[in-house]
């Protein structure tokens, strides 16, 4: 059996939670409105991703990265999204740098026989 429609959308519970943050507590949301929002979010991702992918293709690059998404937002007139994503990328890359330098310090400790500390790492793989 193929995948059902729900599994190809952002989960309705997550979408609903975000919508509910916006409307007053006593406000309600119809089921159809939630599903429409899921579709719109889906189209938002597809629309921007296609634009970014086209740029990568034109520049002979195989990997779509955060900068491409940032660029695509700007290209499509979604300027406030471009701004938000540039700030996010700055923070994210800073966090990654810190993790990487922690890792380097651990490695040096190993080499000098210092007791190992436990670190948690999120390993980001290229897919």
């Amino acid at each position, binding site marked *: 059996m193929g995948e059902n*429609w729900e599994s*190809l*959308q*952002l*989960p309705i519970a*997550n979408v609903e*939670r*975000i919508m509910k943050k*916006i409307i007053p507590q*006593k*406000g*309600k949301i*119809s*089921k*159809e*409105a939630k*599903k*429409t*929002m899921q*579709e*719109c*979010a*889906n*189209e*938002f*991702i*597809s*629309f921007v*991703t*296609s634009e970014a*992918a*086209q740029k*990568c293709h034109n520049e002979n690059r*195989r*990997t*779509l*990265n*955060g900068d*491409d*998404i940032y660029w695509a*937002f700007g290209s*499509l*007139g979604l300027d*406030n*999204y471009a701004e*938000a*994503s540039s700030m*996010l*990328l700055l*923070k*994210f*890359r800073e966090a990654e740098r810190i993790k990487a330098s922690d890792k380097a310090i651990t490695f040096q400790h190993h080499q000098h026989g210092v007791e190992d500390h*436990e*670190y948690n*790492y*999120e*390993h*980001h793989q*290229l*897919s």
Partner: protein
Amino acid sequence: MRQAGAYSGVMYWKTGPHSLPLARIKKIMKKSGEEVKMISGEAPIVFSKACELFIEELTKRSWMIAMQSKKRMLHKEDVASAILATDVFDFLIGLIFNETAATAGDVGESENISVGC
């Protein structure tokens, strides 16, 4: 040293947990076209935040329209009107005028989309 999986669902870092699942976002990105080949780890993270902002913005605009008719419930027609009223959301116009798998045959909730000015 414990290494978590690449997309373990929720990722905590300086700006807090993500409200949308990264693996699902990546799946949607991959389905968007033939040209999408490899996706870096940071791209779904950017979309996690951007989608949250997008849903917030569209909900806010839709709710303001619902309020004009003194409704207490947000309906699909309010979302449709908000899309029509917002230039940068023109890419969504095709969506709201099509019956989709999601909205076709919703018993008791079928609505006419009124094209408001």
